[in-house]
């Protein structure tokens, strides 16, 4: 059997053509991304309970968006002060970055939509942590109740594309209900999960 290695990226199509000749596949690229959007919506809607919703969100961010370092900051009822609700892939004690997230989180809330931040390091982090970070407002009952922060993308994830933006939108619309149900205003027990 022929063994080949392809990492999806700019060189991929050349590699494919070299191995197999011109491909006969002709699918409009605009139709393909729907699968990620469909899977995101379905997975969140099928999640039962807070724990499964968090796992669904982690899977979506990791597998569909290419980011394994993330946290969810919930907002308090009045002051809109973000506090850590859950995290994955982050040692906050080590990075001491929660304060550095305050500004982009508040910007995301003010913007009311997905907020992309270039070079979070330049905004106060000492660690070389993220070239691109994404902050997604999580809504429930038409209010922003939390912000999902995607802090470090995988090396092979080179850009945020249109499909990603659609997935962010679905996360924004659907994750709040999946995570908090109708009790989005209630302050839940602190949940933190650290994985290095």
């Amino acid at each position, binding site marked *: *059997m*022929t*063994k*080949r*290695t*392809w*990492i*999806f990226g700019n060189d*991929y*199509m050349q590699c*494919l053509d070299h*191995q*197999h000749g011109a*491909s*006969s*596949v002709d*699918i409009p*690229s605009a*139709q*393909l*991304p*729907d*699968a*990620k959007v*469909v*899977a*995101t919506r*379905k*997975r969140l809607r*099928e999640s039962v309970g807070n724990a499964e919703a968090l796992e*669904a969100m982690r*899977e*979506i961010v*990791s*597998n*569909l*968006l*290419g980011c*394994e370092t993330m946290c969810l900051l919930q907002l308090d009822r009045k002051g809109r002060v973000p506090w850590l609700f859950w995290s994955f892939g982050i040692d906050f004690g080590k990075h001491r970055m929660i304060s550095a997230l305050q500004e982009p989180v508040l910007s995301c809330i003010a913007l009311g939509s997905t907020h992309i931040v270039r070079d979070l390091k330049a905004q106060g982090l000492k660690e070389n942590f993220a070239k691109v970070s994404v902050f997604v407002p999580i809504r429930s009952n038409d209010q922003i109740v939390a912000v999902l922060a995607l802090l470090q993308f*995988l*090396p*092979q*994830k080179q850009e945020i594309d249109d*499909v990603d933006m659609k997935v962010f939108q679905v996360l924004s619309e659907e994750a709040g209900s999946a995570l908090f149900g109708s009790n989005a205003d209630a302050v839940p027990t602190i949940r933190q999960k650290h994985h290095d």
Partner: protein
Amino acid sequence: MAAKKILLVDDSKTTLLMERSMLERHTGYECVTASNGLEAIEKAQSENPDLVLMDVVMPQMNGFEACKKMREQKATREVPIILVTTRGEEAYMEAGFESGCNDYITKPINGQEFLKLLQSYLGE
């Protein structure tokens, strides 16, 4: 002619949903699923797939081990196996090819490139 069958193996429900949605919407391939390496070996024996698309990091048995086992068994020795993982490090890729996979691709998947790759193995 019977539809070509793909065995999708991943412990992530999200990934299985996405792959299945993509394949059912844009191809005529039949999909069967497994959620870990052990189940994948069983399904590969019972379902006789034309191609296996398998995650690496999974509970009970990872994708490398499952790939090796499939290569040891007569029924699955020649079945194309594509490993799909978030891990793009060279050491992981080498381990993947040592385990006997045909291809090793990284998540997140690009839909069009993904379908072209599958069709390069399976045809229309």
